[in-house]
């Protein structure tokens, strides 16, 4: 039985000392990680290798700690970067180039409240201003653990090589450096704000490639995801009604009106304002609808779509909004990388 005497006495002092001691221990084990800089090209050709360099400092405050180095990178999902990335580092605590290993998806993060490393980073670090929800964190860990002695800093240079897709895009990368013992110690998981991790958000990366620009950064009325698809994929048509002033800016209901063009030159129009064509409201003037083109346009087994054109309408069908707020339809051409 715990007996705390708050009004003086040995028992109260004993508990005060224990609690204070615990707090001191929590503080002195705090790790300090800073990303000093990230060098990354402003533009690269599609299907080439993006090389970036992270310069970081890992310090330890009044204690010695042994941990593995962890690096996280925010990338577009369509790069399939988990299978197309190599990460290595050099440091003042090691000799030569040290390779890092991919942390498998779903691996729990320490202090992550049960979340994986990838999800913990997404919740804690965020999406770096990318507006299209087709991004992910990929995480890497050094195979060995390293000791950071009391008061000594380790300077680390991490080299990241990612084979990017050929998609024509504009994307905001993000870089995270932390260690395997403390993880992010995220405030998103009710932890105290700390310097357990370092982040860096470089200027936007432009990948030049064929086709329409997939712009993750600038608000647009509608950009279909994924960027590459066939008529047998599920594609998502968003509508950001406030990106450009238009006739549906204040609409509470938005409907899809689309025309499919087959590879044989036929056109199929689906333009009725029904529950089936109504976009789902996401709040804040954002709507979306995911469609399976083969099903929506009722294609036979021998038919294939080459492209679609689409506009958004109100419930009456009389108000039409297309590209840049005009009545010109948005267009999307099917094809794979």
């Amino acid at each position: 039985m715990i007996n705390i005497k708050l009004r003086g006495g040995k028992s109260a002092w004993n508990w005060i000392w224990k609690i204070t001691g615990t707090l001191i221990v929590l503080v002195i084990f705090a790790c300090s990680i800073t990303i000093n800089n990230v060098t990354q090209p402003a533009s690269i050709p599609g299907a080439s290798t993006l090389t970036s360099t992270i310069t970081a400092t890992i310090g330890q405050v009044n204690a010695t700690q042994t941990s593995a180095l962890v690096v996280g990178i925010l990338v577009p999902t369509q790069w399939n970067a988990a299978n197309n990335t190599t990460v290595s580092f050099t440091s003042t605590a090691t000799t030569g180039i040290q390779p890092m290993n991919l942390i498998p998806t779903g691996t729990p993060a320490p202090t992550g409240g049960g979340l994986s490393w990838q999800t913990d980073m997404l919740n804690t670090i965020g999406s770096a201003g990318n507006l299209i929800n087709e991004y992910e964190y990929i995480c890497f860990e050094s195979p060995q653990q390293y000791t950071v002695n009391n008061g000594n800093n380790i300077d680390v240079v991490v080299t990241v090589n990612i084979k990017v897709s050929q998609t024509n895009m504009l994307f905001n990368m993000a870089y995270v450096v932390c260690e395997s013992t403390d993880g992010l110690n995220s405030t998103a998981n009710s932890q105290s704000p700390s310097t357990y991790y370092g982040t860096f958000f470089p200027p936007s990366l432009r990948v030049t490639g064929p086709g329409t620009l997939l712009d993750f950064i600038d608000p647009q009325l509608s950009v279909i995801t994924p960027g590459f698809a066939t008529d047998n994929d599920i594609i998502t048509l968003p509508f950001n009604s406030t990106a450009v002033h238009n006739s549906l800016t204040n609409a509470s209901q938005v409907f899809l009106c689309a025309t499919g063009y087959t590879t044989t030159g036929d056109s199929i129009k689906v333009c009725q304002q029904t529950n089936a064509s109504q976009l789902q409201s996401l709040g804040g003037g954002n709507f979306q609808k995911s469609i399976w083109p083969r099903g929506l346009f009722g294609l036979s087994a021998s038919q294939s779509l080459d492209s679609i054109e689409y506009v958004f309408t109100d419930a009456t069908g009389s108000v039409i909004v297309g590209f840049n707020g005009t009545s010109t339809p948005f267009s999307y051409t099917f094809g794979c990388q």
Partner: protein
Amino acid sequence: MNSMRRLIKINYALLLGCMLFSCRTEHLTPPNEPVKNITGTWGIIDATRNGTDLTSSFDFSGFHIVFTDSTYTIDSLVPFIISHNGKWAFDNPQYPFDLIFTQTDSSSIATPFQFPVANGVRNIILTFSPGCPSNSYVYTLQKVN
């Protein structure tokens, strides 16, 4: 004193006898892993595309697949691994890694297969790309009552 020694000797003899007769050869047979049973009607309860949840933005309620012992029938109302009825098989009935569909008049298609229990309910998790190879879909199926 003699009776005490005799009692100790008898105890030793009894203990030795117990030790000798308590030992016998155990024939342990490992438990036989049951063949995975997926017969029944299954519907989609969760779907992702390239990690993005599609469940709330696309109507998967019309999709059903019915497995019998060796055949399946499908309501092909969503992109799926196959679009016509046919036969199915596991690569290994006891320890399956792949579910193999063979449509009528068509070649076989194998897809990674998982059979986990979540919240006390058996799920089938299938990963495939019905369109572009770069677009990966994960469907979680549950039996329809």
